[in-house]
């Protein structure tokens, strides 16, 4: 190009060259402009807000620093409700998160090694909950788990007929069914069940992709060496799934800590967040602070920064764990 178009290039240098130089920057600018305005600016602003008091209804001019600068944080961190909310969030994150992966990994392995023609059919079926809207799912859950003759309570009552099951079920008579959406012992397990159901298919698909990237040669070599299927799974599949496992773990952790939609709809109350706030998460707490009756934007901003620090810490811990368990033999 440089040799053939020497003449026009010197004449057009300014325009043609300039636009070629500027083009990539122009093309990526929508992302950076939108991120700056709607992503970065809100984050920086929320940092200021976390140290301020502000009546959002009466305009920006009413915003001012709080007296001890850390009092918003102090308010949040000493709020007994925040302690409950923090405990709930972690409880839900662990109890819903761990089983997801314990099911998704073997399930993906089985789908990958044993299922041929119907593999796609099964993965698609498992993905349907992930695709369906949270609102739809939460509303259906409300119906199925309702105290008054909800399908789940009826199923439990029916299981009462079997000797084996009856010690598991708190109610033997069918009177006073479990109040899934109210009683504090049941609200968190219900949320966990919902999240598990919603995301196990998604994680299975991700692990399945991970499995597909593992070359068959490794398995063949292992077979030649006389490794059993179980040994192959334990010593080849699991270690080689580590990069995908890292990705899915981070996804689950960040997603679970940010949990909001589900609990907002299931436990819109009264009482909001279930009996004694037993299912209120950090996300719901934040929302109630900002948009609830108090309209305490400062406390909400402080909450969001506490949440950010927690997410950051857990991401770092996850990083460390995955690095430590790294298999030294892996290239």
């Amino acid at each position: 190009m440089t040799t053939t178009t020497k003449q026009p290039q010197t004449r057009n240098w300014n325009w043609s060259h300039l636009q070629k130089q500027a083009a990539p920057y122009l093309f990526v600018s929508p992302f950076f402009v939108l991120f700056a305005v709607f992503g970065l600016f809100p984050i920086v602003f929320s940092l200021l807000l976390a140290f301020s008091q502000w009546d959002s209804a009466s305009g920006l001019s009413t915003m001012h620093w709080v007296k001890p600068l850390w009092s918003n944080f102090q308010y949040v961190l000493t709020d007994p409700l925040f302690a409950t909310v923090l405990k709930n969030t972690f409880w839900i994150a662990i109890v819903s998160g761990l089983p997801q992966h314990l099911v998704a990994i073997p399930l993906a392995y089985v789908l990958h090694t044993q299922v041929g023609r119907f593999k796609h059919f099964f993965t698609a079926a498992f993905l349907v909950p992930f695709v369906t809207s949270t609102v739809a799912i939460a509303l259906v859950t409300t119906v199925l788990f309702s105290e008054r003759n909800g399908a789940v309570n009826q199923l439990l009552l029916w299981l009462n007929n079997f000797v084996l099951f009856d010690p598991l079920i708190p109610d033997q008579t069918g009177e006073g069914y479990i109040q899934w959406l109210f009683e504090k012992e049941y609200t968190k397990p219900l949320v966990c069940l919902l999240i598990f159901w919603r995301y196990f298919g998604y994680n299975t698909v991700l692990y399945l992709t991970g499995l597909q990237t593992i070359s068959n040669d490794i398995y063949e070599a292992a077979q030649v060496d006389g490794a059993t299927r179980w040994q192959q799974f334990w010593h080849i599949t699991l270690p080689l799934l580590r990069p995908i496992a890292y990705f899915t773990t981070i996804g689950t952790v960040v997603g679970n800590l940010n949990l909001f939609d589900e609990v907002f709809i299931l436990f819109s109350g009264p009482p909001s967040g279930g009996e004694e706030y037993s299912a209120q998460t950090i996300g719901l707490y934040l929302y109630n602070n900002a948009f609830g009756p108090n309209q305490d934007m400062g406390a909400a901003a402080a909450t969001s920064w506490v949440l950010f620090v927690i997410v950051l810490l857990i991401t770092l811990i996850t990083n460390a764990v995955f690095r430590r368990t790294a298999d030294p033999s892996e290239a």
Partner: protein
Amino acid sequence: MTVSLTPPAKNSTLRQKQLGGKILLHLGLTVLALLTLAPLFFMFVLATYDKGQVFSMPVHMWFGDASPLNYQILLEQTNFWRAFWNSTYISIMSVIFTLFFCSLGGYAFAMYEFKGKSVMFSLLLGTVLIPSLLGLVPYYLIMQQIGWVGKPIALYFPGAANAFGIFLMRQYIVSSIPKELMEAARIDGCSEFRIYWNVVLPLLGPVMATLGLTTFIFSWNSFSNALVMLREQETFTLPLVLRSLQGVSNVEWGALLLGTAIATVPLLILFVFTSRQFVSNLTSGAVKG
């Protein structure tokens, strides 16, 4: 020849055993799939019963005949089809802007060499880790300042140029579009934007379909953003309308479930026909990311 007489016999019992295992396995997977789909099945079944019947004993296992009644109640209590249109409009606009911005960005990251490219790309990928709740309050404030609160544009524009879409586009363009094409177009005197618009864009069909579908599905389902941004019944999207039905004192569960079912149908149809593209989109983020 004679030596191989015994192994086939051994093989066939082994094969039978394997076949039995396979059938059992497929049965197990089918049960799991049915369990996964059960709540949606009940959504459709219970949508055909009226308020009193939804919670009757025993649980309904097949469709009833109250859906016309439920439909009437749904139309009385909500502006359902208005919300359906709002959701459609926002989702389509979201798809258009996302495809435009992301293909443009992905194209630049795939085909150009420029100063700061790698830094910009890392920055782009880093934004994925920021929790969405972090800037919620000031985000709302900005929207108030520019007058977008209550407007559909608040729901489709700000998120249009997202890291995931740009990453997906870049991967596709790097692997399937030769750089020589750009050079050829340049020699023909195309401007840089025209190369993108007339030469590259028409070649992006498959990845456009993939990203477009995923964007549509997520936009159709999005709740918390709409909850914070929309105030008037007129502008409500489907999730908001459904949720508002739940808020009243005497909930019409039959009508509510019918609305939920109608809102879910387009999505399920779309997903059934495009699940392959949807899966490939989900996983493309995971493989390299």
